[in-house]
């Protein structure tokens, strides 16, 4: 039987650790393996930077510009709103 405490973390496990989701049994390896700790710390730092990326907003009036070109269906199957081909 393989001792999980001796096995290095896989990339998937490193991702789980960076997200705080690594099972406790594998945390034991991390506690004693400097190599995996370095890789994990780098991954966690990158995750944090990516998670902090802002969402940008389009210019004012975006919704109205779209709504002006959308055909809204009616229960009868016809459409309300402008014909996009006209």
């Amino acid at each position, binding site marked *: 039987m393989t001792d999980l405490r001796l096995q290095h973390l896989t990339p998937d496990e490193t991702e789980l650790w960076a997200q705080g989701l690594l099972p406790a049994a594998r945390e034991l390896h991390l506690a004693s393996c400097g190599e995996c700790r370095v890789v994990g710390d780098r991954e966690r730092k990158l995750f944090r930077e990516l998670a902090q990326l802002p*969402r940008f907003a389009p210019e004012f009036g975006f919704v109205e510009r779209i709504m002006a070109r*959308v055909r809204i269906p009616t229960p009868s199957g016809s459409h309300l709103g402008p014909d996009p081909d006209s």
Partner: protein
Amino acid sequence: MVAWAKQGHEAAFRELVRRYERPLFSLLYRMVRDRALAEDLAQETFIKVLNGIGSYNPQFKFSSWIFKIANNAAIDHLRKRDLDTLSLDGSPHATTPEEMHATALQLGDRGESPLAELEARELGGAIEQAIARLRPEYRACILLRHVEGFSYEEIAATLELPLGTVKTYIHRARNELRGYLGDRRE
């Protein structure tokens, strides 16, 4: 909300746009790195989605459907304009340093207009520049995973890629990002 829109409620259409405008625009903006173009592509995506809402299959997540259309629009545009070969490092097909330089994307290329200044401010940070250096396929995967919080399975469905390919792209993209950011820190 989608069911409500399908019944022809204008308010539901507006709500769908409001809900997705920032996520969709942000993805497109980071894909094409041009505000006006990203807005055009986002607009076209919404019009296509909303006008085709009757054909939406609720077996799939609405977010996957709308992001799929947006990503396809970005990739199509990048291919048409050959922008997929533009990166901060130049074309991956370039074989000489001169070719790489000639195809390299310069942030300041678009002049000193207020829009260009805004773009430089918004996309000029180290992490944004590192993302810009990724191949478009890697970029889409990493943005969907880490900015939009999609699962690997959702990304595979959205980008119509095998799950294994998505995992490979994301691992490679992260390695590249760490490399680019490491360069900056050293």
